[in-house]
């Protein structure tokens, strides 16, 4: 099992970029500048279509039932009952116990099943239990695993533990894609977010993801930009393409388009595919559908006419 020595030196074989530090003012200014782009007409329709194709439709509530998950899966396959030209979502993201339900409903649809695991959302459980949980969800048929890092270990400087855990989880994932949730709101700043991003990528993450959606704050544009730049640096240094998933707090079509613009401007067209970019959200889909209806009908829309999920 690879272990990191003290400080923060990554294994030399990976030849990763140096961690360095982040210019917070420039980062926020750049994010705000990109958010001001005006995306209209055909470009807007394309962006909304892409937002749906990149969406991980999510339900992570204590009150989730097989019935609710089945309904959500149905919506992920065919988001707009009135319009078959609206594409399917990328995946449905659920708690481990609901993976079999989602797998049964989504079989053959092309929509993936993602499961959160490793003592989501806190990650404060023994490593053996976390690894066991991942084994279980993969055995139940999850295509993707969203793990959380151990922020307690990260914040106290035990980077080796965080790294080892990701490596151990990646090993048992098998063919399933691994998304590593950094829970950026709990890391305490852009420097730490960049550090955690590089750590997760070094440990073998297929995707890095901003948030659980359960913390006080969630994804923001500057945070995504910070992570995208880490992904770009890894790609520049190693040629490896790591995916990005923004999650938590993305509720409107306008926000979704801003996130997509940022990906396009930072990583380029190659990342604008569900294989490398995801938006994790629960209420976003209805707002995107409302926007599509508005564009098509020329009338402002009402949530009264969209499924309540």
């Amino acid at each position, binding site marked *: 099992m690879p272990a990191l020595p003290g400080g923060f030196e990554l294994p030399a074989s990976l030849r990763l970029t140096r961690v360095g530090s982040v210019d917070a003012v420039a980062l926020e200014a750049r994010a705000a500048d990109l958010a001001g782009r005006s995306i209209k007409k055909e470009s807007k329709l394309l962006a909304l279509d892409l937002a749906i194709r990149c969406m991980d439709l999510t339900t992570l509530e204590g009150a989730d039932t097989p019935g609710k998950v089945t309904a959500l899966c149905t919506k992920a396959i065919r988001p707009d009952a009135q319009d078959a030209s609206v594409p399917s979502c990328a995946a449905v993201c659920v708690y481990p116990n609901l993976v079999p339900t989602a797998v049964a409903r989504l079989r053959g649809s092309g929509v993936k099943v993602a499961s959160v695991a490793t003592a989501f959302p806190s990650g404060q459980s023994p490593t053996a239990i976390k690894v066991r949980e991942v084994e279980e969800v993969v055995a139940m048929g999850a295509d993707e695993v969203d793990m959380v890092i151990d922020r307690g270990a990260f914040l106290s400087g035990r980077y080796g533990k965080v790294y080892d855990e990701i490596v151990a989880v990646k090993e048992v994932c098998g063919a399933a894609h691994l998304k590593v949730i950094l829970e950026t709101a709990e890391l305490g700043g852009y420097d730490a977010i960049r550090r955690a991003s590089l750590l997760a990528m070094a440990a073998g993450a297929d995707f890095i993801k901003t948030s659980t959606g359960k913390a006080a704050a969630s994804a923001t544009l500057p945070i995504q930009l910070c992570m995208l730049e880490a992904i770009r640096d890894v790609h520049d240094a190693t040629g490896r393409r790591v995916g990005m998933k923004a999650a938590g707090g993305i509720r409107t079509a306008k926000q979704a388009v801003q996130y997509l613009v940022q990906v396009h401007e930072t990583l380029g067209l190659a990342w604008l595919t569900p294989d490398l970019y995801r938006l994790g959200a629960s209420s976003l889909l209805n707002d995107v559908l409302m926007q599509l209806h508005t564009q098509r009908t*020329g*009338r*402002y*829309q*009402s*949530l*009264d*006419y969209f499924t309540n999920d």
Partner: protein
Amino acid sequence: MTDRLPVMKTYKLFIGGAFPRSESGRVVEVEGANVALASRKDVRDAVKAARGAFPGWAKATAYNRGQVLYRLAELMEARAGDLAATCSGPDEVARAVDRVVWYAGWTDKLAQVVGGANPVAGPYFDFTVPEPTGVVGIVAPAEPALLGLISRLAPALAGGNVVVALASQLHPLAAVELAECIATADVPAGVVNILTGDPAETAPWLASHMDVNAIDISGAVAAPGGDPAFATALERAAADNVKRVVRGPADGQRLADVEQLLELKTVWHPIGV
């Protein structure tokens, strides 16, 4: 310092309890003042603010709604001078204040007068209660400037509806002056939203908006030199989501104006089983 420059007022929109300029940045000069020229995106923002405010205002007790409307009358009385300068004069203001008080009195009597207990042939207690229709768009009458808007606005509010009103294009100042009374009258933010500008530009977006539940086209019908086809076009656009289309007098007070923006809910409650 005797030759000080007076602070000139730009008459702005009233959306969600705030006084923003138009999203479009446009202004027009009307009645010697700069007045915001609302765009369709201002309509969208106003409807969003109204929808957000609806659950709270609809759930407020009838007594509380009456108190808030009465408080509006108090503030209009206190600013009677400012209001009179924007309409035909003190007489119109006095009648507008009285009209608000008249509707304020209706709020806690609607359930008894409009609703009731219904005799049915079965073991049920059957009763009917009025509930507000929802978000109401109002194309305010062009004249009278203040009384016309109040006559359409107050009955909608009394029933528990929330409002997006398009002020008279000819006399928008009274509407903005009224908005300043509303903003300080404990009317929750978003319950009343007032847009100035050209109703010919904004009203079709309000009429076709799927999140608007009723539209009062009194102003479109009664516009001086108005185009009858305009009202017809609004009615047609409103049909998309089967909006209620209502109209009423520009100067009048009737229970019917409250009733036409109420939905009746009838409950069959089993008894004796």
